[in-house]
């Protein structure tokens, strides 16, 4: 009984981590720097959703579409305003990483300034529990699992079957060669930031509905998304998805046997172990050759 409930819970949280991680990994693999400010895209999306739905009373579906487009554009904005000029000055990836943490803190504080620090909630009919014989789930949680799986499949198809996906993989593989053969890698960066941030936006909307809104949720989520990416292999989008579900499972089994206070400790232990013994992750690329 408990086992099924743990697996269901793992799938729910794993899906949210995966939405964050795959965008993070997509941006990392095409741009080769850690975009820790990715977490703020989740927060921006959840607050915009709150603003649109609760304050402006805009229709549910339109709110979702609006938020996703705005979050995607916010990703491009971050690249254009912060990272682009730094890259132009040939800043190292460490500088970009520090900048990304700065951006995360800056926007976290700006959200606190605009929306205040009080916890906000969105009431929804989707959060009424349905009881099955061996587990409990809400309609929203079913939507989270199903939508995430569909989106992750769509992302896979985008990467494998479309020209822009192929160009993204090419830039990720060999940026210099990509530019020699005339691929506009700036455009590829814009696409990766738009798509990555949009996926984070979807996670933001789900979190706004499923949990409560706090300006600091982004930091926690990007740490988990990053952990998922490392477990699965940061250069591999499918790997980061796999890693996120593994993290979800590990956390949920861990809190069943220990207590919920150990959730983050479990994640960090996993992160530590992978960084130490398998830094390229499960599906990652090792020295240019896929294992």
């Amino acid at each position: 009984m408990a086992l099924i409930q743990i697996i269901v819970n793992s799938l729910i949280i794993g899906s949210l981590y995966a939405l964050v991680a795959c965008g993070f990994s997509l941006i990392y693999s095409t741009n080769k720097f850690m975009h820790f400010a990715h977490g703020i895209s989740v927060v921006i999306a959840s607050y915009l959703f709150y603003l649109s739905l609760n304050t402006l009373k805009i229709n549910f579906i339109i709110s979702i579409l609006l938020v996703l487009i705005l979050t995607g554009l916010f990703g491009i904005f971050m690249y254009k305003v912060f990272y682009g000029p730094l890259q132009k000055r040939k800043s190292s990836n460490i500088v970009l990483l520090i900048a990304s943490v700065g951006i995360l803190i800056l926007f976290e504080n700006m959200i606190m300034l605009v929306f205040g620090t009080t916890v906000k909630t969105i009431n929804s009919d989707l959060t009424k529990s349905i009881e099955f014989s061996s587990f409990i789930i809400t309609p929203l949680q079913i939507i989270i699992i199903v939508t995430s799986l569909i989106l992750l499949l769509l992302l896979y198809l985008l990467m494998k079957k479309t020209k822009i996906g192929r160009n993204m993989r090419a830039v990720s593989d060999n940026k210099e060669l990509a530019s020699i053969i005339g691929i506009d890698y700036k455009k590829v960066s814009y696409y990766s930031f738009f798509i990555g941030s949009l996926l984070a936006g979807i996670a933001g909307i789900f979190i706004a509905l499923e949990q409560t809104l706090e300006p600091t949720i982004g930091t926690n989520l990007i740490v988990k998304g990053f952990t998922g990416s490392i477990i699965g292999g940061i250069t591999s989008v499918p790997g980061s998805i796999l890693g996120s579900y593994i993290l979800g499972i590990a956390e949920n089994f861990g809190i069943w046997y220990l207590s919920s206070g150990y959730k983050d400790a479990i994640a960090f232990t996993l992160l530590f172990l992978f960084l130490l013994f398998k830094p390229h992750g499960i599906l990652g690329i090792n020295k240019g050759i896929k294992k």
Partner: protein
Amino acid sequence: MLEIKNLHSGYNGLEILEGIDININEKEIIALIGPNGAGKSTVIKSIFNIANVTSGEILFNEKNITKLKTYELMKLGISYVSQGRINFNNLSVKENLEIGNDNIDKATKDQRINYVYDLFPVLKEKKNKLAFTLSGGQQQMLAIGRALIQKPKLLLLDEPSLGLSPLLQKELFKTIEKLRDLGLTILIVEQNAKKAIQIADRTYLLEDGKIALTGGKDILKHKKIKNIYLGGRY
């Protein structure tokens, strides 16, 4: 076809080429040889606008192309195969051929990909394999194949035999001759000087950023070449 006049070029303020002149006629193989650090690759990189040209000019069919962007050069019919990591390792052979060349419509591109498959049948056999699974020689074929999709008039090859076994080198040089016979003009930078001189119509020897010697196949007998490549000064 290509005329390089008094070219000074280098990287980040460091001058490598100190005024060189090179002429390439249509349907010729021109070899560029010389010791390490002489600036051979810099010549090709200057043509393809990857190195910094400080003075002098490069004319392609009498048009000055010195400051043109790489994609503009490709449109004009100049393709470049770099040395080192020359393919997208984690893309399939077919994807490696399809990628880039966005100015070509799909039907033409498919036709040219088939042409490359005819030229290098092994690539057709392995079209769905990831590029990193290919052998060194096949990797070279793939890189040249990708350059051919653009249907270039001038092909720039930067040390294509690097890291290949003697047998594969032989095959590669045969292919290069075949491409010339099909009507292509080729500028090849090579470490394997003997082989390069043998297939080239004319050879330029580069030393310390200057042209030290130029000539046809008989250049092999020249004292300078013997000195450099048969255990002389270097």
